Protein backbone atom coordinates (compact mmCIF):
# COMPACT_ATOMS: atom_id res chain seq x y z
CA UNK A 1 0.00 0.00 0.00
CA UNK A 2 1.21 3.47 -0.81
CA UNK A 3 1.63 6.05 1.93
CA UNK A 4 2.08 8.83 -0.63
CA UNK A 5 0.87 9.23 -4.17
CA UNK A 6 1.66 12.34 -6.15
CA UNK A 7 -0.48 12.43 -9.29
CA UNK A 8 0.52 14.68 -12.17
CA UNK A 9 1.17 17.84 -10.23
CA UNK A 10 1.91 21.17 -11.86
CA UNK A 11 3.43 23.72 -9.50
CA UNK A 12 5.79 26.70 -9.36
CA UNK A 13 6.42 30.20 -8.07
CA UNK A 14 4.77 33.38 -9.29
CA UNK A 15 3.76 32.89 -12.89
CA UNK A 16 6.50 30.36 -13.61
CA UNK A 17 5.79 26.64 -13.48
CA UNK A 18 8.63 24.44 -12.30
CA UNK A 19 6.85 21.09 -12.22
CA UNK A 20 4.98 20.17 -15.40
CA UNK A 21 3.07 17.08 -14.32
CA UNK A 22 5.14 14.94 -11.97
CA UNK A 23 3.92 11.67 -10.51
CA UNK A 24 5.64 9.61 -7.84
CA UNK A 25 4.60 7.17 -5.15
CA UNK A 26 6.11 6.01 -1.87
CA UNK A 27 5.29 2.64 -0.33
CA UNK A 28 4.35 2.27 3.33
CA UNK A 29 7.84 1.50 4.62
CA UNK A 30 9.98 2.41 1.65
CA UNK A 31 12.92 4.75 1.12
CA UNK A 32 12.49 6.57 -2.18
CA UNK A 33 15.20 8.85 -3.56
CA UNK A 34 14.63 11.51 -6.19
CA UNK A 35 17.67 12.55 -8.18
CA UNK A 36 18.15 14.91 -11.07
CA UNK A 37 20.07 17.98 -12.18
CA UNK A 38 19.80 21.33 -10.44
CA UNK A 39 16.61 23.13 -11.34
CA UNK A 40 14.79 19.90 -12.13
CA UNK A 41 12.16 20.77 -9.52
CA UNK A 42 13.12 18.30 -6.79
CA UNK A 43 12.79 20.80 -3.93
CA UNK A 44 9.61 22.19 -5.45
CA UNK A 45 8.21 18.65 -5.42
CA UNK A 46 8.88 18.24 -1.69
CA UNK A 47 7.56 21.70 -0.89
CA UNK A 48 4.37 20.94 -2.82
CA UNK A 49 3.85 17.68 -0.95
CA UNK A 50 4.29 19.51 2.36
CA UNK A 51 1.85 22.26 1.45
CA UNK A 52 4.39 25.11 1.28
CA UNK A 53 3.33 25.56 -2.34
CA UNK A 54 -0.17 24.83 -3.59
CA UNK A 55 -0.08 22.81 -6.81
CA UNK A 56 -1.98 24.34 -9.71
CA UNK A 57 -2.98 20.93 -11.07
CA UNK A 58 -2.88 17.33 -9.94
CA UNK A 59 -3.55 15.61 -6.63
CA UNK A 60 -1.53 14.52 -3.65
CA UNK A 61 -2.83 11.52 -1.69
CA UNK A 62 -1.35 10.82 1.73
CA UNK A 63 -2.42 7.69 3.59
CA UNK A 64 -5.54 7.40 1.42
CA UNK A 65 -6.59 11.02 1.95
CA UNK A 66 -6.43 13.89 -0.54
CA UNK A 67 -4.13 16.49 1.05
CA UNK A 68 -3.69 18.77 -1.96
CA UNK A 69 -3.49 22.35 -0.72
CA UNK A 70 -3.45 21.48 3.01
CA UNK A 71 -1.26 23.71 5.14
CA UNK A 72 1.89 22.41 6.86
CA UNK A 73 0.54 22.42 10.40
CA UNK A 74 -2.41 20.23 9.36
CA UNK A 75 -0.02 17.85 7.61
CA UNK A 76 2.26 17.60 10.63
CA UNK A 77 -0.74 16.46 12.65
CA UNK A 78 -1.53 13.84 10.00
CA UNK A 79 1.93 12.26 10.24
CA UNK A 80 4.04 14.05 7.65
CA UNK A 81 7.37 15.66 8.51
CA UNK A 82 9.76 17.71 6.42
CA UNK A 83 13.40 18.69 6.85
CA UNK A 84 14.43 21.54 4.54
CA UNK A 85 17.89 21.60 3.04
CA UNK A 86 19.38 24.46 4.99
CA UNK A 87 18.36 26.68 7.91
CA UNK A 88 16.64 23.64 9.36
CA UNK A 89 17.31 24.23 13.05
CA UNK A 90 16.42 27.13 15.34
CA UNK A 91 19.92 28.49 16.00
CA UNK A 92 19.23 30.38 19.24
CA UNK A 93 17.33 27.46 20.79
CA UNK A 94 19.07 24.60 22.57
CA UNK A 95 18.98 21.07 21.15
CA UNK A 96 16.31 20.11 23.64
CA UNK A 97 14.20 23.15 22.77
CA UNK A 98 14.56 22.35 19.06
CA UNK A 99 13.18 18.89 19.74
CA UNK A 100 10.35 20.33 21.84
CA UNK A 101 9.37 22.57 18.94
CA UNK A 102 8.97 19.46 16.83
CA UNK A 103 6.27 18.35 19.26
CA UNK A 104 4.64 21.78 19.61
CA UNK A 105 1.18 20.52 18.65
CA UNK A 106 1.20 18.08 21.58
CA UNK A 107 -0.29 19.91 24.54
CA UNK A 108 1.16 17.44 27.04
CA UNK A 109 4.79 16.52 27.56
CA UNK A 110 7.03 14.87 25.02
CA UNK A 111 9.65 13.39 27.38
CA UNK A 112 9.30 9.77 26.25
CA UNK A 113 9.55 10.73 22.62
CA UNK A 114 12.64 12.78 23.34
CA UNK A 115 14.22 9.71 24.94
CA UNK A 116 13.72 7.82 21.66
CA UNK A 117 15.52 10.60 19.81
CA UNK A 118 18.38 10.59 22.34
CA UNK A 119 18.71 6.83 21.81
CA UNK A 120 18.97 7.35 18.07
CA UNK A 121 21.51 10.18 18.54
CA UNK A 122 23.19 9.46 21.89
CA UNK A 123 25.60 12.44 21.65
CA UNK A 124 22.68 14.85 21.90
CA UNK A 125 21.80 13.88 25.45
CA UNK A 126 24.93 15.46 26.95
CA UNK A 127 24.70 18.48 24.69
CA UNK A 128 20.97 19.01 25.08
CA UNK A 129 21.44 22.52 26.51
CA UNK A 130 23.84 23.64 23.76
CA UNK A 131 22.45 26.14 21.26
CA UNK A 132 21.82 24.54 17.88
CA UNK A 133 23.55 27.47 16.19
CA UNK A 134 26.82 26.48 17.88
CA UNK A 135 26.81 22.93 16.45
CA UNK A 136 28.64 21.62 13.37
CA UNK A 137 26.78 21.16 10.09
CA UNK A 138 26.42 17.40 10.56
CA UNK A 139 25.20 17.80 14.12
CA UNK A 140 22.66 20.40 13.03
CA UNK A 141 21.40 17.99 10.38
CA UNK A 142 20.83 15.37 13.07
CA UNK A 143 19.02 17.86 15.30
CA UNK A 144 16.80 18.69 12.33
CA UNK A 145 16.10 14.98 11.81
CA UNK A 146 15.36 14.60 15.50
CA UNK A 147 12.97 17.54 15.44
CA UNK A 148 11.11 16.03 12.48
CA UNK A 149 10.81 12.65 14.23
CA UNK A 150 9.27 14.02 17.42
CA UNK A 151 5.69 13.31 16.36
CA UNK A 152 6.41 9.77 15.08
CA UNK A 153 5.65 10.66 11.45
CA UNK A 154 4.53 8.07 8.91
CA UNK A 155 6.50 9.74 6.14
CA UNK A 156 9.66 11.81 6.35
CA UNK A 157 10.52 14.27 3.56
CA UNK A 158 14.24 15.04 3.40
CA UNK A 159 15.71 17.74 1.17
CA UNK A 160 19.38 16.85 0.64
CA UNK A 161 20.14 15.70 4.18
CA UNK A 162 23.86 15.40 3.40
CA UNK A 163 24.39 18.68 1.54
CA UNK A 164 27.67 20.34 2.41
CA UNK A 165 28.88 17.59 4.74
CA UNK A 166 32.20 15.74 4.78
CA UNK A 167 32.13 12.27 3.14
CA UNK A 168 32.23 10.28 6.39
CA UNK A 169 29.42 12.46 7.76
CA UNK A 170 27.36 11.80 4.61
CA UNK A 171 27.58 8.08 5.26
CA UNK A 172 26.69 8.56 8.90
CA UNK A 173 23.58 10.61 8.11
CA UNK A 174 22.40 8.14 5.48
CA UNK A 175 23.00 5.33 7.96
CA UNK A 176 20.70 7.15 10.39
CA UNK A 177 18.10 7.54 7.65
CA UNK A 178 18.24 3.78 7.10
CA UNK A 179 17.88 3.20 10.85
CA UNK A 180 14.87 5.56 11.01
CA UNK A 181 13.30 3.74 8.09
CA UNK A 182 13.79 0.33 9.65
CA UNK A 183 11.73 1.59 12.58
CA UNK A 184 8.80 1.86 10.16
CA UNK A 185 9.03 5.43 8.83
CA UNK A 186 8.73 5.84 5.07
CA UNK A 187 11.26 8.28 3.58
CA UNK A 188 11.12 10.43 0.46
CA UNK A 189 14.41 12.20 -0.08
CA UNK A 190 16.37 14.26 -2.54
CA UNK A 191 20.09 13.60 -2.61
CA UNK A 192 23.13 14.92 -4.41
CA UNK A 193 25.19 11.99 -3.16
CA UNK A 194 23.04 9.89 -5.43
CA UNK A 195 25.05 6.64 -5.33
CA UNK A 196 25.13 6.44 -1.58
CA UNK A 197 21.47 7.39 -1.35
CA UNK A 198 20.28 4.90 -3.97
CA UNK A 199 22.24 2.17 -2.22
CA UNK A 200 19.89 2.41 0.75
CA UNK A 201 16.76 3.13 -1.31
CA UNK A 202 14.07 0.69 -2.40
CA UNK A 203 13.25 2.79 -5.42
CA UNK A 204 14.33 5.96 -7.11
CA UNK A 205 13.12 8.55 -9.58
CA UNK A 206 14.98 10.78 -11.98
CA UNK A 207 13.44 14.19 -12.44
CA UNK A 208 14.52 16.50 -15.26
CA UNK A 209 13.05 19.81 -16.41
CA UNK A 210 10.08 19.34 -14.13
CA UNK A 211 9.05 15.97 -15.58
CA UNK A 212 9.50 12.30 -14.71
CA UNK A 213 12.51 11.01 -16.64
CA UNK A 214 13.01 7.54 -15.22
CA UNK A 215 11.96 5.35 -12.34
CA UNK A 216 13.20 2.03 -11.03
CA UNK A 217 14.50 0.15 -8.04
CA UNK A 218 17.62 1.43 -6.38
CA UNK A 219 19.83 -1.25 -7.90
CA UNK A 220 18.29 -0.87 -11.35
CA UNK A 221 19.21 2.78 -11.30
CA UNK A 222 22.71 2.18 -9.97
CA UNK A 223 23.32 -0.38 -12.75
CA UNK A 224 21.82 1.62 -15.59
CA UNK A 225 24.80 2.96 -17.57
CA UNK A 226 22.92 5.92 -19.00
CA UNK A 227 21.73 7.12 -15.59
CA UNK A 228 25.22 6.52 -14.30
CA UNK A 229 26.69 8.70 -16.97
CA UNK A 230 24.10 11.48 -16.81
CA UNK A 231 23.17 11.70 -13.14
CA UNK A 232 25.59 9.72 -11.00
CA UNK A 233 28.80 11.34 -12.13
CA UNK A 234 30.15 8.53 -14.38
Amino acid at each position, binding site marked *: MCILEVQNIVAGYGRVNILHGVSISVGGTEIVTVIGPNGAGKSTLLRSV*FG*LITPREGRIIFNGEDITGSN*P*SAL*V*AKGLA*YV*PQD*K*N*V*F*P*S*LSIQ*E*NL*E*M*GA*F*ILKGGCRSRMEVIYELFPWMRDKRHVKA*GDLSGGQQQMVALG*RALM*LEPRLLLLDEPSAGLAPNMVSEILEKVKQINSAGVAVLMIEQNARKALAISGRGYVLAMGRNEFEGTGSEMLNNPEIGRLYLGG
Partner: protein
Amino acid sequence: MEQLIVNGIITGSIIVLGAIGLTLTYGILRFANFAHGDLMTLGAYAALTLAGMNLPFGVVFVIAMAFTAAAGILLDTVLYRPLRKRGSIVLLISSIGAALLLRNLILIIWGPRMRYYSPDIQIAYMLPFGIRIKPDEILIIGIAAALIVLVHLFLKKTRIGKAMRATADNAELAQIAGINTDRVVMWTWGIGCALAAAAGILLGMEVQLRPQMGWDILLPLFAAAILGGIGRPYGAMAGGIIIGLSQEISTAFISTAYKPAVSFAVLILVLLIRPSGIFGKEGRWS
Protein backbone atom coordinates in the same frame (compact mmCIF):
# COMPACT_ATOMS: atom_id res chain seq x y z
CA MET B 1 28.98 60.99 36.99
CA GLU B 2 27.55 58.48 39.49
CA GLN B 3 24.29 60.40 39.35
CA LEU B 4 24.28 60.21 35.54
CA ILE B 5 24.81 56.45 35.69
CA VAL B 6 21.82 56.08 38.00
CA ASN B 7 19.74 58.28 35.70
CA GLY B 8 20.93 56.19 32.78
CA ILE B 9 19.76 53.01 34.46
CA ILE B 10 16.34 54.55 35.14
CA THR B 11 15.94 55.70 31.53
CA GLY B 12 17.47 52.43 30.37
CA SER B 13 14.94 50.28 32.25
CA ILE B 14 12.09 52.14 30.57
CA ILE B 15 13.73 51.77 27.15
CA VAL B 16 14.34 48.06 27.77
CA LEU B 17 10.65 47.38 28.39
CA GLY B 18 9.69 49.21 25.22
CA ALA B 19 12.47 47.69 23.13
CA ILE B 20 11.65 44.06 24.05
CA GLY B 21 8.19 44.39 22.53
CA LEU B 22 9.57 46.20 19.49
CA THR B 23 12.26 43.60 18.85
CA LEU B 24 9.82 40.71 19.27
CA THR B 25 7.28 42.06 16.81
CA TYR B 26 10.10 43.04 14.47
CA GLY B 27 11.70 39.60 14.71
CA ILE B 28 8.51 37.59 14.32
CA LEU B 29 6.49 39.74 11.92
CA ARG B 30 9.51 41.11 10.03
CA PHE B 31 8.51 44.75 10.05
CA ALA B 32 9.36 47.84 12.04
CA ASN B 33 6.21 48.79 13.92
CA PHE B 34 6.27 52.56 14.17
CA ALA B 35 3.10 52.50 16.26
CA HIS B 36 4.91 50.87 19.17
CA GLY B 37 5.72 54.16 20.87
CA ASP B 38 2.12 55.30 20.65
CA LEU B 39 0.95 52.02 22.14
CA MET B 40 3.19 52.96 25.07
CA THR B 41 1.38 56.28 25.31
CA LEU B 42 -1.97 54.50 25.19
CA GLY B 43 -0.97 52.30 28.12
CA ALA B 44 0.20 55.33 30.11
CA TYR B 45 -3.08 57.21 29.58
CA ALA B 46 -5.20 54.13 30.25
CA ALA B 47 -3.42 53.94 33.60
CA LEU B 48 -4.18 57.63 34.19
CA THR B 49 -7.90 57.01 33.82
CA LEU B 50 -7.75 53.89 36.00
CA ALA B 51 -5.77 55.77 38.64
CA GLY B 52 -8.55 58.35 38.63
CA MET B 53 -10.93 55.60 39.78
CA ASN B 54 -8.93 55.22 42.98
CA LEU B 55 -7.88 51.67 42.18
CA PRO B 56 -4.73 50.38 43.85
CA PHE B 57 -1.49 50.88 41.91
CA GLY B 58 -0.90 47.19 41.16
CA VAL B 59 -4.41 46.76 39.76
CA VAL B 60 -4.06 49.87 37.61
CA PHE B 61 -0.80 48.57 36.26
CA VAL B 62 -2.11 45.14 35.34
CA ILE B 63 -5.37 46.36 33.80
CA ALA B 64 -3.54 48.99 31.72
CA MET B 65 -1.16 46.29 30.45
CA ALA B 66 -4.05 43.98 29.55
CA PHE B 67 -5.92 46.81 27.86
CA THR B 68 -2.93 47.77 25.73
CA ALA B 69 -2.28 44.12 24.86
CA ALA B 70 -5.87 43.87 23.63
CA ALA B 71 -5.44 47.09 21.64
CA GLY B 72 -2.30 45.70 20.00
CA ILE B 73 -4.01 42.44 19.08
CA LEU B 74 -6.93 44.40 17.66
CA LEU B 75 -4.59 46.58 15.61
CA ASP B 76 -2.94 43.48 14.22
CA THR B 77 -6.21 41.78 13.36
CA VAL B 78 -7.83 44.75 11.66
CA LEU B 79 -4.84 46.29 9.94
CA TYR B 80 -1.60 44.36 9.83
CA ARG B 81 -2.88 40.85 9.20
CA PRO B 82 -4.62 41.72 5.91
CA LEU B 83 -1.47 43.56 4.76
CA ARG B 84 1.03 40.92 5.88
CA LYS B 85 1.43 39.30 2.47
CA ARG B 86 2.25 42.66 0.88
CA GLY B 87 5.69 43.03 2.38
CA SER B 88 7.38 44.78 5.25
CA ILE B 89 7.38 48.30 3.80
CA VAL B 90 3.62 48.40 3.25
CA LEU B 91 3.24 47.28 6.86
CA LEU B 92 5.65 50.01 7.91
CA ILE B 93 3.63 52.71 6.11
CA SER B 94 0.49 51.36 7.64
CA SER B 95 2.07 51.41 11.10
CA ILE B 96 2.92 55.10 10.69
CA GLY B 97 -0.74 55.73 9.89
CA ALA B 98 -1.70 53.70 12.94
CA ALA B 99 0.76 55.69 15.06
CA LEU B 100 -0.77 59.03 14.05
CA LEU B 101 -4.26 57.63 14.49
CA LEU B 102 -3.52 56.44 18.02
CA ARG B 103 -1.71 59.61 19.06
CA ASN B 104 -4.50 61.88 17.87
CA LEU B 105 -7.19 59.69 19.40
CA ILE B 106 -5.30 60.00 22.68
CA LEU B 107 -5.12 63.75 22.17
CA ILE B 108 -8.88 63.94 21.64
CA ILE B 109 -9.77 61.71 24.57
CA TRP B 110 -7.30 63.02 27.14
CA GLY B 111 -6.46 66.47 25.79
CA PRO B 112 -3.17 67.96 24.63
CA ARG B 113 -1.94 69.23 28.01
CA MET B 114 0.69 67.57 30.17
CA ARG B 115 -0.73 65.29 32.85
CA TYR B 116 0.71 63.75 36.00
CA TYR B 117 -0.21 60.59 37.88
CA SER B 118 0.27 62.32 41.18
CA PRO B 119 0.43 66.02 41.95
CA ASP B 120 2.78 65.41 44.88
CA ILE B 121 6.41 66.39 44.64
CA GLN B 122 8.67 63.63 45.87
CA ILE B 123 11.65 64.19 48.12
CA ALA B 124 14.72 62.41 46.81
CA TYR B 125 16.70 60.06 49.02
CA MET B 126 20.35 60.92 49.43
CA LEU B 127 22.62 57.97 48.75
CA PRO B 128 26.41 57.67 49.00
CA PHE B 129 28.51 59.33 46.24
CA GLY B 130 26.05 62.21 46.25
CA ILE B 131 23.45 60.21 44.35
CA ARG B 132 19.89 61.44 44.63
CA ILE B 133 17.04 59.12 43.81
CA LYS B 134 13.31 59.58 44.24
CA PRO B 135 11.07 56.82 45.65
CA ASP B 136 9.28 56.60 42.29
CA GLU B 137 12.58 55.99 40.57
CA ILE B 138 13.38 53.07 42.85
CA LEU B 139 9.93 51.73 42.01
CA ILE B 140 10.62 52.17 38.27
CA ILE B 141 13.85 50.18 38.45
CA GLY B 142 12.18 47.54 40.63
CA ILE B 143 9.15 47.08 38.38
CA ALA B 144 11.29 46.99 35.25
CA ALA B 145 13.60 44.38 36.81
CA ALA B 146 10.64 42.25 37.92
CA LEU B 147 9.05 42.39 34.47
CA ILE B 148 12.34 41.49 32.80
CA VAL B 149 12.62 38.41 35.02
CA LEU B 150 9.03 37.46 34.15
CA VAL B 151 9.72 37.87 30.44
CA HIS B 152 12.84 35.74 30.83
CA LEU B 153 10.87 32.95 32.54
CA PHE B 154 8.14 33.19 29.93
CA LEU B 155 10.61 32.90 27.04
CA LYS B 156 12.65 30.10 28.61
CA LYS B 157 10.09 27.98 30.40
CA THR B 158 6.77 28.13 28.60
CA ARG B 159 5.85 26.29 25.43
CA ILE B 160 4.53 29.43 23.74
CA GLY B 161 7.55 31.46 24.85
CA LYS B 162 9.92 28.97 23.28
CA ALA B 163 7.77 28.95 20.14
CA MET B 164 8.09 32.74 20.04
CA ARG B 165 11.87 32.51 20.10
CA ALA B 166 11.74 29.78 17.47
CA THR B 167 9.52 31.89 15.21
CA ALA B 168 11.82 34.88 15.62
CA ASP B 169 14.73 32.61 14.64
CA ASN B 170 13.09 31.22 11.52
CA ALA B 171 9.41 31.78 10.82
CA GLU B 172 9.20 29.34 7.92
CA LEU B 173 10.83 26.54 9.88
CA ALA B 174 8.41 27.22 12.75
CA GLN B 175 5.55 26.66 10.34
CA ILE B 176 7.23 23.51 9.01
CA ALA B 177 7.62 22.18 12.55
CA GLY B 178 3.87 22.55 13.00
CA ILE B 179 3.98 25.56 15.32
CA ASN B 180 0.72 27.47 15.17
CA THR B 181 2.25 30.73 13.99
CA ASP B 182 -1.02 32.68 14.23
CA ARG B 183 -1.15 31.99 17.93
CA VAL B 184 2.50 32.90 18.31
CA VAL B 185 1.81 36.21 16.55
CA MET B 186 -1.11 36.93 18.86
CA TRP B 187 1.01 36.23 21.92
CA THR B 188 3.79 38.39 20.54
CA TRP B 189 1.45 41.35 20.25
CA GLY B 190 0.02 40.65 23.65
CA ILE B 191 3.36 40.45 25.44
CA GLY B 192 4.97 43.23 23.42
CA CYS B 193 2.13 45.67 24.00
CA ALA B 194 1.72 44.79 27.66
CA LEU B 195 5.40 45.62 28.14
CA ALA B 196 4.94 48.79 26.10
CA ALA B 197 2.15 49.82 28.46
CA ALA B 198 4.42 49.19 31.43
CA ALA B 199 7.15 51.28 29.81
CA GLY B 200 4.64 54.05 29.14
CA ILE B 201 3.41 54.10 32.74
CA LEU B 202 6.96 54.18 34.09
CA LEU B 203 7.86 56.96 31.68
CA GLY B 204 4.79 58.85 32.84
CA MET B 205 5.92 58.42 36.44
CA GLU B 206 9.46 59.58 35.68
CA VAL B 207 8.58 62.56 33.50
CA GLN B 208 4.94 63.32 32.67
CA LEU B 209 2.21 62.26 30.28
CA ARG B 210 1.97 63.89 26.87
CA PRO B 211 0.29 62.56 23.71
CA GLN B 212 3.70 62.83 22.03
CA MET B 213 5.64 60.93 24.73
CA GLY B 214 5.72 57.52 23.05
CA TRP B 215 6.63 58.87 19.65
CA ASP B 216 9.50 60.88 21.13
CA ILE B 217 11.05 57.77 22.65
CA LEU B 218 10.64 55.61 19.54
CA LEU B 219 14.10 56.40 18.17
CA PRO B 220 15.87 55.23 21.37
CA LEU B 221 13.68 52.10 21.28
CA PHE B 222 14.75 51.31 17.73
CA ALA B 223 18.36 52.07 18.58
CA ALA B 224 18.20 49.64 21.52
CA ALA B 225 16.51 46.92 19.47
CA ILE B 226 19.00 47.21 16.60
CA LEU B 227 21.96 47.46 18.96
CA GLY B 228 20.87 44.22 20.62
CA GLY B 229 20.15 42.50 17.30
CA ILE B 230 16.63 42.49 15.88
CA GLY B 231 14.44 39.66 17.19
CA ARG B 232 16.62 39.11 20.24
CA PRO B 233 14.87 40.03 23.47
CA TYR B 234 18.02 39.53 25.52
CA GLY B 235 19.91 41.78 23.16
CA ALA B 236 17.20 44.43 23.56
CA MET B 237 17.70 44.33 27.33
CA ALA B 238 21.42 45.06 27.02
CA GLY B 239 20.79 47.53 24.18
CA GLY B 240 18.23 49.44 26.23
CA ILE B 241 20.57 49.89 29.17
CA ILE B 242 23.42 50.98 26.87
CA ILE B 243 21.20 53.53 25.13
CA GLY B 244 19.86 54.81 28.46
CA LEU B 245 23.38 55.21 29.83
CA SER B 246 24.76 56.91 26.73
CA GLN B 247 21.85 59.35 26.62
CA GLU B 248 22.34 60.39 30.24
CA ILE B 249 26.13 60.39 30.26
CA SER B 250 26.15 62.53 27.11
CA THR B 251 24.53 65.33 29.12
CA ALA B 252 27.87 65.82 30.86
CA PHE B 253 29.30 66.96 27.54
CA ILE B 254 26.48 68.30 25.37
CA SER B 255 23.11 69.95 25.86
CA THR B 256 20.39 67.70 27.32
CA ALA B 257 18.23 68.70 24.36
CA TYR B 258 20.30 66.36 22.20
CA LYS B 259 19.45 63.16 24.09
CA PRO B 260 17.39 61.72 21.21
CA ALA B 261 20.19 62.59 18.80
CA VAL B 262 22.62 60.59 20.97
CA SER B 263 20.64 57.41 20.47
CA PHE B 264 20.55 58.23 16.78
CA ALA B 265 24.33 58.58 16.74
CA VAL B 266 24.73 55.23 18.51
CA LEU B 267 22.34 53.70 15.98
CA ILE B 268 24.33 55.01 13.01
CA LEU B 269 27.53 53.76 14.61
CA VAL B 270 26.04 50.27 15.02
CA LEU B 271 24.78 50.25 11.44
CA LEU B 272 28.24 51.20 10.21
CA ILE B 273 30.21 48.74 12.29
CA ARG B 274 27.95 45.79 12.98
CA PRO B 275 24.42 46.09 11.54
CA SER B 276 23.31 42.76 12.95
CA GLY B 277 23.74 44.20 16.45
CA ILE B 278 26.26 43.41 19.13
CA PHE B 279 24.60 40.09 19.91
CA GLY B 280 23.29 39.26 16.46
CA LYS B 281 24.83 36.80 14.05
CA GLU B 282 26.94 38.47 11.38
CA GLY B 283 25.07 39.26 8.22
CA ARG B 284 21.76 37.86 9.30
CA TRP B 285 19.83 41.02 8.53
CA SER B 286 21.83 42.57 5.80
